[in-house]
């Protein structure tokens, strides 16, 4: 028996809307935007990190400028510039029509994320000791080959935890897209409480979904970190290998 929180709050309403189709659609949209934007951010981050540490002054300065601008302005501002400002300047009906709120959200959040990811990747690369690059080069690898086969695989372990952090923030930041009327989770709950006035109940519904998504992701991240502990002296057992053992017999994993 849940004691009543206050006169005007009803858990039944929460239960009733928890799996509402609009809410589910919003949650799914949230995940889609977050994943797509984060992937875009990781790719851009890798690219700009390599540009930043390159000896070429043009790419290095350009990358520095990109990081400065996209970290220096609010992501909501960047979203508005992309969704409202740029179509105004381009002045093409086709462009405005093709730039849906969904695509604009992914693009704006992705490009913004790239600026943060580039610093994370750069830190990861710096964490790999210089001797690794020396050894790779002395074996005849070019800088790029050394990066790809020796440095970046090692940087990955250092890059994953903060990237996981970024993704959790991304999941929540997608709620900003409600400002351009994208039907993600928060906007979906707004739409519902605008008509039934059950503000708190619907916000609790949204909160439950956000918590569920971020929690599941945290577990996945922990598992990924265990999987990446290749070559370490003390390898934590992954849930995957634990599950295999339970199902009967280890197979040298």
């Amino acid at each position, binding site marked *: 028996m849940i004691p009543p929180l206050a006169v005007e709050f009803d858990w039944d309403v929460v239960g009733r809307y928890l799996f509402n189709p609009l809410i589910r659609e919003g949650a799914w949209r949230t995940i889609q935007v977050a994943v797509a934007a984060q992937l875009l951010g990781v790719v851009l981050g890798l690219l700009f990190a390599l540009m930043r540490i390159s000896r070429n002054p043009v790419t290095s300065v350009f990358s520095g400028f990109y990081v400065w601008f996209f970290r220096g302005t609010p992501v909501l501002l960047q979203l508005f510039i992309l969704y409202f400002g740029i179509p105004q300047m381009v002045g093409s009906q086709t462009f405005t029509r093709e730039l849906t709120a969904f695509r604009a959200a992914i693009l704006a959040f992705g490009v913004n994320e790239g600026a943060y990811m580039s610093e994370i990747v750069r830190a990861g690369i710096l964490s790999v000791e210089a*001797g*690794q690059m*020396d*050894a*790779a*080069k*002395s*074996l*005849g*690898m*070019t*800088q790029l*080959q050394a990066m790809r*086969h*020796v440095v970046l*695989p*090692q940087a990955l372990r250092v890059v994953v935890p903060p990237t996981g952090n970024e993704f959790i923030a991304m999941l929540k930041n997608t709620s900003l897209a409600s400002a351009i009327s994208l039907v993600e989770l928060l906007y979906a709950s707004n739409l519902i409480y605008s008509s039934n006035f059950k503000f708190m109940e619907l916000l609790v519904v949204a909160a439950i979904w956000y918590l569920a998504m971020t929690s599941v992701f945290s577990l996945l991240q922990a598992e990924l970190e265990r999987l990446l502990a*290749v*070559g*370490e*002296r003390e390898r934590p057992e992954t849930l995957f290998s634990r599950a295999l053992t339970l199902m009967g017999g280890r197979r040298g994993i």
Partner: protein
Amino acid sequence: MAEPVVRAVDVHKRFGRLEVLRGVDMDVARGEVVVLIGPSGSGKTTFLRCINHLERVDGGRIYVDGELVGYREKNGRLVEDREREVARKRGAIGMVFQRFNLFPHLTALGNVVEAPLRVKKLSRREAGEMGRELLGKVGLADKLDAYPSQLSGGQQQRVAIARALAMQPKLMLFDEATSALDPELVGEVLEVMKSLAHEGMTMIVVSHEMGFTREAADRIVFMDEGVIVEEGPPEELFARPLQPRTQAFLSKIL
């Protein structure tokens, strides 16, 4: 007379305002084993790293098998070479580091085959066969699937030697290869280096191991403060050092 494998002419190198190499001239013949000795800061390691262009040279020239490494000669001046060319030439020079620098995310066999796979584009089968053979040669046939963190220092360094040999270099550079090892592990690495020398590999070794030097070196070069002070065969240099600086240094380590 056959062309020397390494020819260094008046090599200068500076780090900021510190002049580390102040005019080094050296020839190393094919199959010769040269051991560089000298106090720390004398420029031995820097010189080694200039040979395979891990460090840039500020003056002079270094030729490996008749070619400049890392540079092209253009109108009498040195111009930095394209990366692909530098990498190609580096592949023919093997280097073994004091701290091993094994790739921790790969097994022993993985370390050895990585460069042949990626640089020489060997097939996995060919690279694997060569890798197994090389690891067998250094006495680690039973450690193919071990990760560096599971190996002792001596084993790691032997894997590093096998890894450098996998690229079939014509010259091997050893930068204080045993200095970071526990004393009881030094021997196994020196054995590998000795057998390599006996097989006729051209080697330039920076080392403090005088036992190895006496047995395997064709020539000792004593460096101090960025210049070569004295050089000669071990028997002569150890028995009759001519320069006072050489005498002072040798009295401390022999």
